[in-house]
């Protein structure tokens, strides 16, 4: 009875007596669990959402595609599967054909889809009548899209001619699961029963047909394995995909996005781990004396270790529970953040599996980080009862082993998250490099600062404080500068993405573009608009050579960003636009240049160095044309105004080239829709583009994404601050002693605060500056290499970030130090002497 009581009381005491350290530890554990659980939960719901749609979207568990009838080996493999009852198969043929009305006096290109009974395997085809698709689709009939009825002036019950067959329209298809809304679809859908395939007479040698075989595997079948066997039988041109592997762009995007978030989570995890380690070290250091006393009175190492493990486990459990609850609760916030980003509604989808996964991972990390401080308990000898704390214990083999285990764990986690192991390896290398660099840079700066002698005594003392023996300054600098690097880097990349894709839309910029206006429509077009905007002739052409040096389109296409191999829009005019300025040349076109002249935008010179007099060879709609560079222009402001890379003189041969006219106008938002439909009715060949709408949609999406990123980044910042607090608490005794020494020697409170403020300020400034340096380099590499966008440095924001960092470190540092500064000298002196 006595023993367990003692245990419980002991554990309880250890926790309550070091409230602050215990709180920091719990918060660190909680942070790591929150970020892990909420990100895996987010991943779960996104994946479930996409996967749920994926089966329907791709039509089956396994999907075979071919442009020709399936090969005998693949057919045999499928037959074997179906014969054994491992899968149900369904054939689908898709092709375009011209469908005619019964009198054959009206026709329309339609997208035919021939399906066997049982279609669809997943999802539901919605019919206008509300009847079920399998019940309606039978041989001899067709289910068509509304557009076909409209265009051929038919209604349900009428007949259509498809190939050689005449079919009765049985119903109208409203929605089908495997055909998402697409702007690229040619013509309306016509569903026909597979039994009519031969009757149509459309499938023969030379026909362009997409053959598909949809497989629905038996419950619990190993889809990947089956797909693998099928792949082994597939011949060239036959594709075998599973609903998982068939990657849509949206899935790829979210995979990348989730990976990015996971990286942040892992980073938060590392920071919290460091926080856990440092707070636990401090907690145990404060207990050294009582531990020594317990040992002196005969407590075994096992007793003490056991109890502290119990203390850590209890605090860890508490943090884990809090973190899990908080992370779970966050799930309900996610749909609000993600609303509109995903097809359908995002339901919180935290599965028990990923919750458990997150918790196990969190506990593993907590234990690994807690291991070294706990292991060091062994080093507390009873003799410590008589002596004050001696120099910091050396790192033993065990510490290195646990560090190696941690490194391996995180490396594994990052690699596991990534499908591309090469990127993972680079990333790890980068992270390791970042830490090494931070270490070297911190060391260099510290020793440099040590060499400088400052006039101010407080500043000198603050610097000395950084070098305080046994102080964790370097460790703090490394963790802080590494974490700020990541946080700043994310911010900078986000800023750059934003600037590139969502430039703030100027109020007077045009918001409605019209392309493909025909030259002879201009007058009529102006009449319809009610005013005459500036028209820009557009001549499509390719650049074939510069000074007779051929441009290889293939090589150009592999360049990041813009390239010279693409088709350019040329124009002709004689004046500079309002937002243009000349970089080279005195006028758009020179008098002394022979032959055809061309003015180029500086963007082109970034792709290939050019100067006045260089000869550019174009292929303009089949006609080779050579022109001499007469001037180089630049744009004076980033705007939505139309611009052209190549401008030819107004009175040049380009006037005769096949061309379309482009114009950009600004209308009040309310009028845009009306104008769009008026133009569409009068000029069917003209395409209106509502720019504001496109930009607004994109901005909303980016905003939502960055909100999510910011949220997870905030967790990382919180972990970083916890490290500062815990390390200040960890050096509490040393700091308190220093404070008192200053006071005994006659320093005023202001001096002491100045020393501590400066010390924190130095830490904030150094880590902020180092972080900024690394983040600028990192963000530049990410922007240019991965996102392939131009990079901006954002100096003002960068300075602000460093200032904010300093302020944050000082505030957090000082608030953690307030209790230390307030101590009466004698209390500390006694603690130092008598404890």
């Amino acid at each position, binding site marked *: 009875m006595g023993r367990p009581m003692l245990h419980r009381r002991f554990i309880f005491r250890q926790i309550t007596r070091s409230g602050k350290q215990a709180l920091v530890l719990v918060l660190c554990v909680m942070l790591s669990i929150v970020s892990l659980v909420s990100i895996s939960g987010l991943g779960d719901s996104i994946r479930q959402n996409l996967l749920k749609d994926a089966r329907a979207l791709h039509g089956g568990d396994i999907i075979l595609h071919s442009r020709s009838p399936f090969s005998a080996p693949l057919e045999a493999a499928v037959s074997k599967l179906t014969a054994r009852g491992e899968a149900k198969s369904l054939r689908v043929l898709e*092709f375009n054909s011209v469908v005619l009305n019964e009198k054959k006096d009206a*026709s329309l290109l339609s997208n035919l889809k021939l399906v066997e009974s049982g279609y669809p395997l997943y999802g539901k085809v919605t019919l206008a009548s509300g009847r079920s698709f399998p019940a309606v689709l039978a041989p001899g009939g067709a289910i068509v899209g509304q557009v076909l009825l409209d265009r051929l002036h038919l209604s349900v019950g009428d007949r259509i001619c498809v190939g050689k067959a005449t079919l009765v329209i049985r119903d109208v298809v409203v929605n089908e699961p495997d055909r998402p809304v697409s702007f690229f679809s040619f013509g309306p859908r016509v569903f026909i029963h597979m039994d009519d395939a031969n009757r149509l007479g*459309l499938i023969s040698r030379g*026909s362009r047909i997409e053959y598909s075989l949809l497989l629905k595997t038996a419950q619990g079948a190993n889809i990947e394995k089956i797909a693998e066997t099928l792949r082994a039988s597939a011949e060239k041109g036959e594709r075998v995909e599973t609903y998982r592997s068939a990657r849509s762009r949206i899935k790829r995007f979210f995979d990348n996005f989730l990976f990015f978030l996971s990286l942040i989570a892992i980073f938060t995890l590392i920071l919290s781990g460091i926080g856990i380690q440092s707070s636990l070290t401090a907690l145990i250091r404060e207990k050294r004396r009582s531990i020594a006393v317990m040992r002196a009175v005969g407590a075994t190492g096992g007793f003490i270790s056991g109890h502290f493990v119990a203390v850590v486990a209890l605090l860890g459990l508490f943090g884990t529970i809090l973190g899990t609850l908080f992370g779970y609760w966050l799930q309900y916030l996610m749909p609000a953040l993600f609303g509109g980003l995903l097809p359908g509604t995002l339901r919180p989808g935290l599965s028990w599996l990923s919750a458990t996964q997150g918790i196990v991972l969190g506990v593993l990390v907590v234990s690994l980080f807690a291991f070294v401080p706990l292991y060091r308990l062994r080093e507390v000898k009873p003799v410590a009862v008589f002596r004050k704390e001696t120099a910091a214990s050396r790192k033993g083999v065990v510490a290195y082993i646990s560090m190696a285990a941690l490194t391996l764990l995180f490396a594994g986690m990052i690699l596991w998250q990534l499908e591309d192991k090469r990127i993972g390896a680079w990333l790890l290398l980068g992270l390791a490099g970042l830490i090494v660099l931070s270490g070297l840079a911190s060391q260099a700066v510290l020793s440099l600062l040590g060499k400088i002698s400052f006039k101010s005594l407080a500043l000198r003392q603050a610097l000395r404080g950084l070098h305080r023996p046994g102080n964790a300054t370097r460790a703090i600098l490394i963790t802080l500068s590494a974490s700020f690097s990541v946080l700043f880097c994310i911010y900078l990349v986000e800023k750059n993405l934003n600037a590139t894709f969502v430039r703030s839309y100027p109020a007077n910029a045009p918001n409605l573009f019209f392309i493909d206006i025909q030259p002879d429509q201009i007058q009529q077009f102006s009449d319809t608009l009610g005013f005459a905007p500036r028209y820009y002739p557009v001549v499509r052409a390719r650049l074939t050579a510069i000074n007779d040096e051929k441009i290889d389109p293939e090589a150009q296409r592999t360049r990041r960003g813009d390239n010279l191999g693409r088709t350019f829009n040329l124009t002709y005019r004689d004046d500079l636009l309002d937002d243009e300025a000349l970089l080279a040349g005195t006028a758009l076109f020179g008098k002394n240049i022979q032959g055809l002249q061309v003015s180029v935008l500086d963007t082109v010179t970034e792709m290939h160095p050019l100067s006045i007099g260089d000869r550019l060879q174009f292929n303009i*709609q089949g006609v080779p044309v050579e022109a001499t560079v007469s001037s180089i222009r630049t744009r004076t402001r980033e705007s939505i105004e139309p611009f052209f890379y190549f401008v030819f003189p107004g009175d040049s041969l380009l006037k*005769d080239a096949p061309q379309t006219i482009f114009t950009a106008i600004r209308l009040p938002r309310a009028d845009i829709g009306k104008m769009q439909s008026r133009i569409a009715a009068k000029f069917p060949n003209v395409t209106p583009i509502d720019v504001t709408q496109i930009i607004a949609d994109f901005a909303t999406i980016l905003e939502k994404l960055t909100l999510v990123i910011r949220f997870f980044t905030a967790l990382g910042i919180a972990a970083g601050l916890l490290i500062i607090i815990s390390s200040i608490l960890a050096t509490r005794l040393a700091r308190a002693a220093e404070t008192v020494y200053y006071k005994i020697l006659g320093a005023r409170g202001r001096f002491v605060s100045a020393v501590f403020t400066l010390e924190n300020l130095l830490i904030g400034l150094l880590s902020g500056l180092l972080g900024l340096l690394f983040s600028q380099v990192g963000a530049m590499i990410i922007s240019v290499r991965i996102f392939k966008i131009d990079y901006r440095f954002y100096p003002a924001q960068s300075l602000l970030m460093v200032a904010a960092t300093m302020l944050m470190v000082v505030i957090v540092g000082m608030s953690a130090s307030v209790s230390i500064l307030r101590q009466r000298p004698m209390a500390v002196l006694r603690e130092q002497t008598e404890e």
Partner: protein
Amino acid sequence: MLTLTAVIAVALGVTTSPALSAETGSEGVIVAMGDSLTEGYGVMEEEAYPALLQEMLLKNGYKFKVVNAGISGETSSGALSRVRWMLRLKPDIVILETGANDGLLGIDPAVTEKNIAQILTVLKKENITVVLAGMKMVPNMGKTYTDAFAKIYPALAEKFHVALIPFFLEGVAADPSLNNGDGIHPNAAGYRVLVGNIYPYVTSAIDKWKSKEAK
């Protein structure tokens, strides 16, 4: 929809055959006007038919420059809009290959026929010798359509008294070994077959042009 296709198509570009060197001299200019089948979608410029044709002609003593004026994705309307522009190349002979994209888009054959007729009118007026490349549509478009489509070319050839290649892709179409993955664009081997098919029509057009020039 059409705009988008056009944008995609134009992005694929236009190329010209390597120019004949000045020393060899040139008897005349042949412009190969057409869509992706002329441009050589998916193959190198040197592997597309205009380059092969020039080479073959040169080997047989015809010093003609063959200009590749193909634009991927172009329909007969596109070809019509740039026919006057093509005259800048001062062609003596034009090999006109267009309409395949019309067929794949299910455009009314009457529209295609009207466009090609206008192109031929312009070329005739400029006294240019024309070789018209006949085209057939894939069977899945339906017999009514493919029949109407196939009739365009012989009818126009007869009406405008121009030479007709009955089917441009004869012996190449629908043969997987002669086409690239998409099943409609010839690969390098396909173009070697193709150029052999059309060669006699081109030489007879050259002879016709020469006799016309001689007059």
